[in-house]
């Protein structure tokens, strides 16, 4: 579904991502892990078109999206969340989801005017559905900036889902969450798979990654150093060294 081929991003002399080959299959939940600064977030930003790619290519469903700007990527069906929450704080919870209905499907269904004026019926029901899914229905008229941290994290996920994406890139969705919240997030991610969505999970919280993903890729210094099932990754020597340094005994 998503294919990265020799993807590189250099910031000056820094090779944030360096010749990364990686593929995501339809309906999969894959993890992308690695120590701080290993290029995980940069990879997400490259896929979404936030930064221009230095070299290499990205294909989504066989279509080259290497140079597609963010709004085009979203229209094609790729949505993301941010590592540091980036909500529209001055908009209500409800409006945060409302403005995110921009997929190709939405465009076609509602037409130009319907989309801009806001649409009744289906548009509203769809927002309600996502609020329900993220347990935010009671907060719908609250300003996003007034929500608690956990609620803001949930709203970010809901906002990404409001675009009805097929591929979801989650950039550290569990950062700062307590164990209970991480558990709820894991349930939510699994149920997304049930809805036929494909998820790429960039995460530091290992209990989440090991718990929900089927396959994990490990990055270090912008390169992929390992790929495999969670148990394979846990046993991998190169991965341990990347995280703990060489010579570490566990």
């Amino acid at each position, binding site marked *: 579904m998503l294919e990265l081929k020799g993807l590189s991003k250099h910031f000056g002399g820094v090779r944030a991502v360096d010749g990364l080959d990686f593929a995501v299959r339809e309906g999969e939940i894959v993890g992308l892990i690695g120590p701080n600064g290993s290029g995980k977030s940069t990879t997400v930003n490259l896929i979404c078109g936030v930064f221009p790619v230095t070299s290499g290519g990205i294909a989504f469903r066989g279509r080259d999206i290497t140079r597609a700007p*963010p709004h085009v990527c979203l229209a094609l069906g790729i949505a993301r969340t941010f590592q540091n929450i*980036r909500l*529209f704080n001055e908009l209500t919870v*409800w409006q945060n989801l409302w*403005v995110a209905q921009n997929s190709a499907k939405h465009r076609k269904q509602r037409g130009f005017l319907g989309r801009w004026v806001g649409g009744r019926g289906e548009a509203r029901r769809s927002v309600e559905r996502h609020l329900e899914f993220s347990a935010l229905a009671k907060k719908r*008229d609250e300003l996003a900036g007034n929500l608690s941290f956990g609620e803001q994290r949930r709203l970010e996920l809901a906002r990404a889902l409001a675009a009805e994406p097929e591929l979801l890139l989650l950039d550290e969705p569990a950062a700062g969450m307590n164990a209970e919240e991480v558990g709820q997030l894991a349930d939510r991610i699994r149920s997304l798979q049930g809805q036929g969505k494909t998820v790429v999970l960039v995460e530091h919280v290992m209990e989440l990654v090991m718990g929900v993903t089927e396959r994990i890729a490990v990055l270090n210094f912008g390169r992929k150093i390992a790929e495999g099932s969670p148990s394979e990754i846990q046993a991998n020597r190169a991965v341990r060294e990347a995280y703990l340094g060489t010579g570490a005994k566990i």
Partner: protein
Amino acid sequence: MDYLYGLAQTIGVHTILGLSAYVVLQTGQVTMAQAAFYAVGAYVAAMLTTVWGVNILLAIPAAAAVACALAGLAGFPALRFKGLMLVVATMALGEAVREFFFNFDYQIAKGDLKVGPAGAEGFRQIRYFYERGWTTAEVAGFIWVFVIGIMALLWWMDRSRIGAVLRAVGEDELAAQSVGINLTAVKVSAFALGGAIAGVGGALYAHYTTHVEHTAFGVVMATFAIAYPILGGLSSVFGTLIAVLFIQGLLIQGLPILIGGELRNLLFGLLILLAMNIRPRGLIDERVARMLRGLFVRSRNA
């Protein structure tokens, strides 16, 4: 009584000026070019009615269209600038337009009178209302039809998805892009709409003052244009109206009646500072705006 109608005219055109910047500010773009679009509207409409004898009801949309087109064109290069850079860039555009009108000479003879813009002297004898015997009250009423129309349009926009999208762009461009909003389209459209509104305001301004010149459309007017919506708050169109009432009505017209002399100028600035300190999010902030909305309509989502 005529004094009050005159005041209503001033407040009306200044509200339109403020609202033209309101739309652009909502997208997070601080524009100092509104005075330029206002000037374009003023000159285009005045030339149409005075030089070519066009009906004012056609001249106003034409002025809006020209100002809109210019603003749309200005919107593209403006995309590359942010924050202070954009302020400087739009200010430069404003000055360029002002300089253009400083040098703009196009007069024709009409009876024993020469009419049309005459460079530094400005465009005198815009006698459309005068020739048709409109009273001050009628002109004020005419202006307020447009003020109310524009306010209604923006009020509706604020409540529709467009308003939410404009605010989303203003708040966080990266997040807005990532939820699929086309930044270029939204920012340029906001610029164009702001230009069109300024064009209408300029057209009305030219006709009620009967005389425009380039000095009026300088940095001071551009500053007022953004000061109204910033002081009034970007949550509701009523904020801009209230800020205009506060500055034009109370501070400029009201204070001299209450207090004479030097003290007034000092107080002018102090009162604006005070207002901004007490209400840092604008006179009409989101909380008040929601209350206002509640008065008119029961929340659809409640």
